[in-house]
């Protein structure tokens, strides 16, 4: 590859300046960066709550905060992290930035709706932040009725409205991606030549479009119940509180697939690039993304096993919950098979990918534990469940996000991050994560309930270990903030394709020009075709 020229070429960052050019941009790449800044802020707010939780849990007594405050802490932690960080994270940042480029398009199908989506997230987040500052919500992120509708004395409505607005952000992004992927692929780019990152986001978008509206209407009903006392979830008036749970989890279970599918898409790209091999079983991995999207809608009742849901329904949901694990397992097997006889290198993104595969597997397998009716009766509402979902969402989704962020950092900024520091923080994140959450499996199994801050003294050792791990994890998260920002100014220039990866996004400059490509590409070979890449390089010389 020729040495990268100093950035005299105009790119999407330099073509216009000033606040208005950012706040009124229609460029998907700039919108992706707007999202990046926003979700990072929300992440640190959610992280602040987590810190307070972990510090409180160092001692068995409720000495740092009162029970009421503690309820608000874990509620706000959950709400911030799920609705305002994880759901947007990969799709709105990496997805927004990369999907048009990966399909050879100049932008998304509806650039202004894309900008609107960002504003909706910001507005929703502001509502939620206002609610937090005014005193917060104490219902748990799950808002179970009738506590949230009748008895809670906290800012339920403001927070719920914030989530309602953010939900529309999610719906519009999904809509945008679906239309874009259907309609704007470059000539020659058939469905089965798409990078698996795109397949993953397509599946995610389908979930967003089908599921989020149900959350929206559920929030409306909670609002109506709280304000007008219509009685829909109030047993005294003939309502059914469990109906709320059905409606809520109909969205919120597929929501966890909204959080993990894009991460899996990232991992496919990382594994392939850093083993220099096409993904084994490409069609199966693409199909499994769609299967997860479909099956993910059929299992929500596993959150209601002990809610007085009928045993018959529980049986059906339990069975289906086992079935939904199969497509995920297919992905893990295929990624592993990709590694076999691959030419593996251990750059930072690959370290995160390895971390993902291990931790996601543990999280997924423990999901099977809780999917079984019998075991769930014992571990539900304990730290076992907490550990399970943090393994997937933090050990899985966040590691994939960091891996993807590092992988595409040179494309986004035109600079390389410092590899040494990056590897170090990847290691710290991995160690810190396990230190935080592995003890929680044991805690939960031994009976430590979730959402409690006063606990029997025998659990203290494990809690202290968990908090220590969390401190390490926090360091691991702050480090990339520092060196990535540093690298934007001082990092070495990266060329168009520093990792020799396949994919149309690597065929244009780093950072890309405003309209992504100087000449729209025509695709003639399959995805992950490394031999074709080598030919091109040698022919260009």
């Amino acid at each position, binding site marked *: 590859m020729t040495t990268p020229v100093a950035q005299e070429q105009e790119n999407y960052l330099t073509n216009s300046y000033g606040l208005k050019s950012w706040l009124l941009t229609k460029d998907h790449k700039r919108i992706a960066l707007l999202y990046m800044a926003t979700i990072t802020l929300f992440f640190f707010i959610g992280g602040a709550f987590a810190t307070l939780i972990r510090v409180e849990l160092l001692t068995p007594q409720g000495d740092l905060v009162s029970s009421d405050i503690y309820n608000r802490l874990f509620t706000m932690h959950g709400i911030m992290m799920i609705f305002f960080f994880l759901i947007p994270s990969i799709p709105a940042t990496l997805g927004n930035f990369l999907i048009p480029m990966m399909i050879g398009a100049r932008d998304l199908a509806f650039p202004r709706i894309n900008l609107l989506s960002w504003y909706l997230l910001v507005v929703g987040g502001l509502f939620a932040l206002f609610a937090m500052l005014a005193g917060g919500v104490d219902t748990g992120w799950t808002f179970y009725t009738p506590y949230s509708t009748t008895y809670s004395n906290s800012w339920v409505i403001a927070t719920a409205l914030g989530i309602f607005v953010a939900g529309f952000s999610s719906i519009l992004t999904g809509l945008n991606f679906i239309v874009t992927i259907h309609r704007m692929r470059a000539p020659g780019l058939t469905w089965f030549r798409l990078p698996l990152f795109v397949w993953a986001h397509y599946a995610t978008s389908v979930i967003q479009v089908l599921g989020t509206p149900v959350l929206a209407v559920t929030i409306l009903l909670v609002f109506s119940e709280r304000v007008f006392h219509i009685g829909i979830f109030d047993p005294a008036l003939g309502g059914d509180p469990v109906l709320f749970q*059905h409606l809520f989890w109909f969205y919120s279970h597929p929501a966890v697939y909204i959080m993990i599918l894009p991460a899996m898409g990232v991992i496919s790209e990382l594994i392939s690039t850093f083993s220099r091999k096409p993904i084994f079983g490409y069609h199966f991995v693409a199909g499994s993304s769609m299967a997860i999207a479909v099956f993910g809608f059929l299992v929500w009742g596993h959150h209601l096993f002990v809610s007085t849901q*009928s045993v018959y329904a529980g049986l059906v949901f339990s069975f289906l919950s086992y079935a939904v694990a199969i497509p995920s397992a297919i992905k893990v097997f295929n990624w592993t098979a990709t590694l076999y006889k691959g030419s593996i290198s251990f750059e930072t993104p690959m370290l995160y990918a390895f971390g993902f595969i291990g931790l996601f597997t543990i999280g997924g397998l423990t999901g099977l534990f809780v999917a079984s009716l019998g075991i769930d009766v014992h571990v539900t509402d304990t730290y076992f469940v907490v550990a399970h979902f943090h393994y997937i969402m933090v050990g899985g989704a966040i590691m994939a996000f960091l891996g993807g962020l590092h992988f595409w950092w040179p494309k986004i900024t035109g600079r390389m991050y410092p590899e040494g520091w990056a590897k170090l923080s990847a290691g710290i994140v991995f160690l810190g994560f396990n230190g935080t959450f592995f003890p929680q499996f044991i805690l939960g199994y031994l009976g430590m309930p979730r959402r409690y801050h006063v606990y029997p003294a025998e659990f203290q050792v494990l809690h202290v270990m968990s908090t220590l791990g969390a401190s390490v994890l926090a360091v691991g998260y702050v480090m990339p903030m520092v060196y990535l920002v540093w690298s934007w100014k001082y990092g070495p220039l990266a060329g168009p394709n520093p990792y020799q990866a396949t994919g149309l996004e690597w065929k244009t400059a780093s950072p890309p020009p405003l309209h992504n490509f100087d000449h729209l590409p025509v695709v003639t070979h399959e995805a992950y075709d490394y031999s074709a890449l080598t030919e091109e390089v040698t022919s260009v010389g």
Partner: protein
Amino acid sequence: MTQHIDSVKTYAVIWISLLILTGVTTAVAFVDLGPFSVIVALSIAVVKMMLVALFFMHLRHSGKVTQLAMAATVLWLGIMVAFTFADVATRGWMGVPGR
């Protein structure tokens, strides 16, 4: 987008059919059909929906993808209703887990 332009007559036929069906469903509601009342009412509603969707919304001229997407949407609604019903309707059957 290829234009299939239907005739005014086609639309008018559908329109009249819809009005007739509305009359039918209203009248039938006054007849005691036992448990079939709901089924009949919903069936007529479904037929009306199909007429509006296929003819007025031009779904019958739309691509396969759109048709599939709409069918899938209805299916999804069905899933949500059916599975929730599986809980609500069978609560008395086997008791509650854990007891």
